[in-house]
């Protein structure tokens, strides 16, 4: 056992020393492979990253959710959005069989102020089902009570970021925040929801009961930004999507709304993924191919220059297989070094480029495995012909090749 281990390590060191013999050639081959692996690692991360983005979005929506966002009209402006959906739409949609809960949503950017501080933030009007369907969980204080909705109570629930901004470490519960000229008492703070993949915070919102919102924030408003339906377990999701669409089309002259389902998000991201994979996959295949081609040519030169070495190794008892194994091992050694360097370079490019593409940065360890596999395969394929040529040398002629 110890013997064969010694032999393996000698075999390895002698392969590495052979590569050190001609650093320039080795470096060329190494760079070729590294480049291919870099782009390969990048793709794997891009796919992984946009998949996790999709999962994240779907998780946030909930798999049984249908979200309908209103169109904005032509001259849209963040402060005066002309929503096309209204309360009647909502009431119609709520009656579809198989819809478990329905919620609609009004939002507006407003100046929020305490006694000493102020900032612009999003104010949302929430129906009683809202906190559940959008997964806003109050973890300090309490959620809205049924009476809060009926009595236009001037109470609010705020996000942890807003709480920190206005009150720092102090307890915000029972304190007041002003929107326009109305003061709202803080009764609850929802658990941090983090950020959307695009960096937008979900923790800086001020939520009011819907009736309160309509009375104090947008009194004349019958329009809604979005309607959310939750499909009951066991109901035909696709059928409900179709029905919702046809109900809306009956009231609206044209399709001035957007229906968003987790399926659509998934599909969109899949298409995005596929496009990305095709382009980058092609790029990395070309790079690997070029790297392999360089490697192959370098090994043809290698084998030719070292013909007499093959001759003496044959004289010392190497058979055709061991000669092949030697050159394949040298090639794979370069390729593996290229794989490791390429993986590092790939991770670096993920760090630098992914933010520009809006894809979350991930550094999947499986890309190292993929890199090692692809590099090994490239190394083997590239060296197979030169190695075979080396094995095919007639020993005597190989020996005579040294002058």
């Amino acid at each position, binding site marked *: 056992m110890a013997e064969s281990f*010694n032999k393996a390590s000698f075999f390895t*060191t002698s392969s590495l020393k052979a590569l050190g013999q001609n650093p320039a050639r080795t470096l060329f081959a190494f760079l070729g492979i590294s480049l291919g692996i870099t782009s390969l690692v990048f793709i794997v991360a891009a796919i992984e990253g946009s998949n996790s983005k999709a999962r994240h979005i779907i998780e946030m929506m909930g798999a049984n959710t249908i979200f309908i966002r209103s169109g904005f009209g032509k001259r849209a402006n963040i402060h005066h959005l002309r929503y096309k959906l209204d309360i009647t739409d909502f009431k119609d949609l709520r009656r579809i069989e198989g819809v478990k809960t329905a919620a609609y949503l009004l939002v507006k950017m407003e100046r929020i102020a305490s006694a000493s501080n102020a900032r612009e933030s999003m104010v949302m009007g929430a129906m009683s089902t809202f906190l559940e369907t959008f997964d806003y969980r109050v973890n300090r204080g309490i959620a809205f009570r049924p009476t809060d909705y009926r009595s236009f109570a001037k109470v609010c629930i705020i996000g942890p970021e807003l709480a920190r901004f206005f009150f720092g470490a102090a307890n915000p519960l029972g304190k007041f925040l002003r929107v326009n000229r109305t003061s709202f008492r803080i009764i609850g703070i929802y658990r941090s929801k983090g950020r959307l993949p695009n960096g937008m915070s979900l923790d800086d919102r001020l939520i009011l009961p819907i009736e309160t919102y309509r009375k104090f924030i947008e009194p004349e408003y019958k329009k809604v930004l979005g309607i959310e339906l939750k499909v009951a377990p066991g109901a035909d999701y696709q059928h409900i999507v179709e029905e919702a669409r046809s109900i809306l089309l009956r009231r609206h002259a044209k399709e001035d709304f957007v229906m968003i389902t987790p399926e659509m998000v998934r599909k969109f991201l899949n298409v995005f993924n596929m496009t990305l994979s095709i382009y980058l996959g092609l790029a990395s295949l070309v790079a690997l191919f070029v790297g392999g081609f360089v490697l192959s040519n370098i090994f043809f030169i290698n084998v030719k220059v070292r013909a007499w070495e093959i001759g*003496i190794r*044959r*004289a*010392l*008892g*190497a*058979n055709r297989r061991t000669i092949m194994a030697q050159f394949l091992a040298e090639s794979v050694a370069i390729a593996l070094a290229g794989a490791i360097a390429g993986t590092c370079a790939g991770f670096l490019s993920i760090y630098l480029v992914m933010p520009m593409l809006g894809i979350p940065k991930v550094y999947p360890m499986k890309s190292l495995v993929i890199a090692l596999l692809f590099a090994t395969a490239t190394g083997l394929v590239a060296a197979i012909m030169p190695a075979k040529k080396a094995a095919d040398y007639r020993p*005597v002629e190989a020996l005579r090749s040294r002058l």
Partner: protein
Amino acid sequence: MALIRLDGIVKTFRQGELEVRVLKDIALKVERGEFVAIMGSSGSGKSTLMYILGCLDTPTSGTYHLEGMDVSGLDDDALSAIRNSKIGFIFQSFYLIPYLDVLENVLVPTLYNPSPGDARGRALGLLDEVGLGERIGFSPGELSGGQKQRVAIVRALINDPDIILADEPTGQLDSSSSRQVMEILERLNRRGKTVIVVTHDPDTAGYARRRIMIEDGRIIQ
């Protein structure tokens, strides 16, 4: 039973249209423990004969019995195994692998040996014996011709072969290095190795106890 027995060995090379008959009906017997010099002028076929004796090349026709076994029809794997275990080659131009150090060069044949045993220990002992115990980490480029040839001898011995085949082992050496090398071969022969030396140098041939003359592909004496 002779260690080596050649009968009717013919070797032809094809050069385009032309067939060159380099060895013509060679018959030769070498007993175990002999020290033989093969002599002859340049181009007479000495190296070609030695390659066939070393199973590095196969004859065009004729039979070769090594230790009583007919090896003329063996395949490459079997011939490689024979070279590895039974034959040690020494060449005029040393053929040390430039990127390996002295010890590694000596160990190369053990890579192809299925049961190399304590190869390192043997290598160190043998290198010591030929006066290179202090040079194990040197690269071949840092050695003199005589030292290189001694490394090559140790490499030939590492798998403990029965037969040492040396093709002009002193061809690139000065007279004192030549003497050193030949004395080592003589010592090995006394210890029971069968040594066959190809040379056209009479001094080198003088170490052998039997001399064979080859001329134009035939043994003439």
